[in-house]
């Protein structure tokens, strides 16, 4: 076990897989010689060569299109999209091709891609470096969508994604790259150093995609969340002194509704939190599903805390971000409702 931050854990996952499986290739803008603008692919080209760790032209649609062809020809490409905000030029290749290939060809052809991309705000990136577009991928059948919240999960899930024969869109909350973040921008930035989930095995291990984690056990209310908001929810619950169970779903699709429903049936209350804009975001699916599964147990309406329905503004980042205060307030309101 070593202490790794999320960047190191992700790097280690690719390192392990490049070494184990000669069909794994890594590609993307600036990922090769330079090691990526967030350094997630640092040193991999040097170690595995320019034919396995490829710098690419700046064409997200081309990266995914070419990677699909590579996947069809027996490789396991791990493509980086430099920012999730720049994944849209690849949306057609992802939705119309990657997600459909197995189905339309009755499994005669498949492309086991992993598409990694940093998402989320909290780094003053403004409206084009802060988005969380998981919702517009979760709706697309044929792909899986994953978002880890800590180094241990990040490595185990990325290895699982690379080994998965289905395509996986792997969202990396960039605010967590260097440390956990409890949603309070006034506090000094934290490092992963003392976080239990930063103890990461150096070698190979994998986590099952589609299993939620109970990030904090509790009995009074269920908080369903993922990514950066896992830390914010825990911090909010603790600040409020509320015995909340925080569930880190880790993947949107497959969704581990059983773990969620069990908790909500136990607590009778539920708060959903994500950073993406609220309207028609993934929280809507969570809310709808939970309501369908746990209607008779609910003692209060399911609450959603999310980014406002605006672009992510540079100057008002902390007004936009659903931070500790906003979650606390919502949690308090939820607990005050008489069931």
């Amino acid at each position, binding site marked *: 076990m070593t202490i790794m931050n999320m960047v190191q854990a992700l790097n280690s996952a690719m390192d392990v897989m490049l070494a184990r499986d000669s069909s794994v290739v890594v590609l993307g803008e600036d990922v090769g010689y330079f090691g990526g603008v967030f350094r997630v692919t640092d040193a991999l080209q040097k170690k595995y060569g320019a034919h396995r760790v490829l710098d690419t032209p700046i064409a997200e649609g*081309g990266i995914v299109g070419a990677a699909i062809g590579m*996947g069809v020809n027996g490789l396991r490409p791990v493509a980086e999209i430099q920012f999730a905000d720049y994944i849209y030029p690849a949306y057609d290749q992802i939705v119309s091709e990657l997600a459909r290939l197995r*189905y339309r060809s009755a499994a005669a052809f498949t492309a086991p891609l992993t598409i990694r991309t940093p998402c989320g705000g909290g780094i003053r990136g403004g409206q084009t470096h802060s988005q969380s577009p998981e919702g517009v991928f979760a709706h697309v059948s044929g792909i899986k969508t994953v978002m880890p919240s800590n180094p241990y999960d990040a490595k185990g899930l990325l290895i699982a994604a690379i080994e998965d024969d289905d395509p996986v869109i792997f969202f990396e909350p960039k605010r967590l790259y260097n440390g956990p973040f409890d949603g309070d921008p006034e506090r000094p930035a934290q490092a992963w150093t003392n976080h239990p989930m930063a103890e990461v095995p150096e070698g190979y291990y994998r986590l099952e995609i*589609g299993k939620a984690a109970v990030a904090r056990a509790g009995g009074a209310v269920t908080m369903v969340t993922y990514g950066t908001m896992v830390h914010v929810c825990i911090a909010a619950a603790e600040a409020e002194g509320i015995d909340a169970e925080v569930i880190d779903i880790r993947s949107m699709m497959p969704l581990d509704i059983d773990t969620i429903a069990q908790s909500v049936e136990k607590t009778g209350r539920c708060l959903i939190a994500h950073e993406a804009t609220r309207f028609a975001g993934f929280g809507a699916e969570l809310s709808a599903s939970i309501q369908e599964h746990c209607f008779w147990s609910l003692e209060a309406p399911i609450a959603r805390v999310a980014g406002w329905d605006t672009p992510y503004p540079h100057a008002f980042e902390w007004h936009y971000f659903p931070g500790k205060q906003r979650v606390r307030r919502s949690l308090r309101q939820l607990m005050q409702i008489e069931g």
Partner: protein
Amino acid sequence: MSEPKLHVPAVPARPGETPDFSYVNLAPAGAVMKPDPRVPVAETVALAESLIRVLDEQGKACGPWNPKLSPDRLIVGLREMLLTRVFDDRMQRTQRQGRITFYIRSYGEEAVSVAAAAALARSDMLFPSYRNQGLFIARGVSLVELMCQLLSNTRDMCKGRQLPVMYHAAEENIFSLSGNLATQFPQAVGWSMAAAIKGESRIAAAWIGEGSTAAADFHHALTFAKVYKAPVILNVVNNQWAISTFQGYAGGEQRSFAARGPGVGIAGLRVDGNDYLAVYAATQWAAERARCGEGATLIELVTYRAGAHSTSDDPTRYRPREEFAEWPLGDPAERLKQHLIQLGAWSESQHAALLAELEETVATAWKQAMAYGTLSEGPKLDPKLMFSDVYKNMPEHLRLQCEQMEREA
């Protein structure tokens, strides 16, 4: 507001007007030189603007691009073109009769697929468009198999999921068709990059229509092919029309599509797409170039979409009926036939006999295919197939939806 001056591409003739193909830049057969496949890109500039032709007006093969194929090989080519055509005609009729829901013919463009398939190795991977049924036929995919796809019946290779004509043939190294135009172009490039990464000498070839060159994926393919010198052949089938839209709307006015190749730094060839020998030779040249590490070639195949876009289309609404008769590059099957006759290797009566045989082959296959069911008459595919292959293993929510469907049936 003063007089608007936005340019809109001229369409040579609309219904009721006289066909006018003066815009097509022609060249006599044999006129274009044939460089070594290893030449620098710049030396293909002229080839991308001229027109590589082998068969002349009299059906004689001439010039340096003559691939000098044996008459036996040519007869196989003729047979494959005609089989494609007979198959197309029959399937079109079955569509009119309501047996299949949709069909797309390749009438007039058969050489583009059939000659290319002949020039490539069986292990090379093909990424077709919906008008390349000739590739499936030339690679020997059984007609029954194709028909079962068209019928969405119990033997449908796509298990009922795809529109008719959206075939694939993994064993014959032909990729799965997509309804989305041009998406296969960067995929073919990526496939060929993987071959190069693995150190294999297999190459890829892909086809799109000239209208589809406007799509982003055409650009992605060219860029990636150029940057990594990918061993791929990128074919643009310029059949002059994209549904109702004339090729000028894809940028074809006074500019060949092949010129896009040298424009980005890959070789370009403009080829008479209705000349079996020219298509064969150009494909062979590009394949050799790819295999010896010189990278991609963009081949424009100049041809004419003799039929409707698809069975949903009525071309008399937007172009003169007589266009195909006036098309300066003729009919590919007719031209190869004349060549064989001129060589003394073929006759009208052999031709008639062949056609009759092919009609029979197709009819027999159709009977067999129908025995496996149609979309409306049993035996039918199990609707539960709807839920498999979305993922490798069926996720829980799909298993539940599948159960729900069964309960409600």
